[in-house]
């Protein structure tokens, strides 16, 4: 495997696991990290979260990853666990370039 892909996969796995653990801890989910598939939707179906949970997720993500998330960004990111990871990756890259 090319080193570039290896790094990408390791980074993605690492962030995915951190986001899963954050969700379990912040929302008191009765599940293990492996039981939260990356494409699990957050609202209605999937984890069936509500608007209060949405605020909790954003606050926890900002604290865990030292990032700042706007309302518009959160609307697009609060769809699946994977979309949260995508947002964290973008924000971390932004922080690196600043």
């Amino acid at each position, binding site marked *: 495997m*090319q080193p570039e*892909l290896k790094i990408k*996969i390791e980074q*993605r796995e690492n962030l995915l696991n951190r986001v899963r653990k954050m969700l379990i801890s912040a929302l008191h989910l009765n*599940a293990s990290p*492996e*039981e939260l598939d990356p*494409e699990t939707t957050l609202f209605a179906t999937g984890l069936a979260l509500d608007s209060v949970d949405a605020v909790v997720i954003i606050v926890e993500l900002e604290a865990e990853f030292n990032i700042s998330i706007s309302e518009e960004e959160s609307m697009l990111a609060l769809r699946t666990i994977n979309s949260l990871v995508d947002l964290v990756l973008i924000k971390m890259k932004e922080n690196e370039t600043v």
Partner: protein
Amino acid sequence: MKLSKESEIGYHAIRSGVAFSEDPDLLCLQIKGDSALDVLDKICPCDIFLQNGQMKHTLLLDDNGIPFADIYVCMEDFNTYILGYCKNADTLIEWINFRANTIEDYAIIDLMKTHFCINLDGPYSWELASEVFGSDILSLPYLSMLETNDFIVFRGGRTGEYGYHFLVPKPQKNSWLEKVKSQGAAYKIKQADKTALSQCALENFFFDLYKEGSYGLSPMELQLQWRLSTQKNEYPGASAIKNIKKTGWNQRMVCFISPEELNPNDKITYEGIEIGQVLSIGYSPIRGDYVGKALLIKPYWHSGLDGFYVNNVPVKTISAPSITNLSLKVSPYRNSYHTRKESI
């Protein structure tokens, strides 16, 4: 394959306005009697904590833990319902009766023998639905149902947009359809065929029993663990699921995009090594490329990766859903189809 002109018209109506469709594949069973909830509890892998009018998305599994039905379970006034997709209703009824053989005081009614399903999908389907079927529709949250003297409505859908399944008595089918079409004219309503609905489901990563569901994959491989309870131990397929969780799984279905047309079963490679296969694929008119579902082995099973090929075509994994649904920006409290250009 790109959508036919007819399918594309229906597709755009789903994505930007309202589309109606007839759904001959949808099945709806009503389970009546004092033990109706016990029956659901016995056969479903999810927890059956249903409030009145609530729907819950789950699966039915065979003894190997493989899904053979993609269903909602619902409850209204102590009647329970199974709404969804399975090979056929008679086989499902037989399976339920076999599994619930120790339970008495229940009866299963196949509602599709007496009813017909009309679907309304689209970011403004709520508005037309409330005009045709009554304003109570507006107060229906996602995953809830309502039974009236004239129809039963389930708010679900598989397009990522607002979606409603209306079950109307067969003798009234044509009058309801005419009403939908005539009042829908103000919404430029179009009919969506199976291909259009299937493409929308694919773009939003909804499970398709007839596509990826035909590969004999487990809920873990399909990323459908959320349809199963993490606490429940007794249901058909439970021991197989427990075993898979214990031993782990090495492949997972992911969303991907391709600039060119590919086919189901095409092999996906990285540096010449096979890492998976295409399960389903379709052209996305909104994106302008092909969206698909692929089964990839660990550790290539993540989104956001590229460098993968199908023959010489580069493919890239992405997070689902592959599009941003207009329904996310449309609110029944603030918006209207008739003022959409000013308000969205």
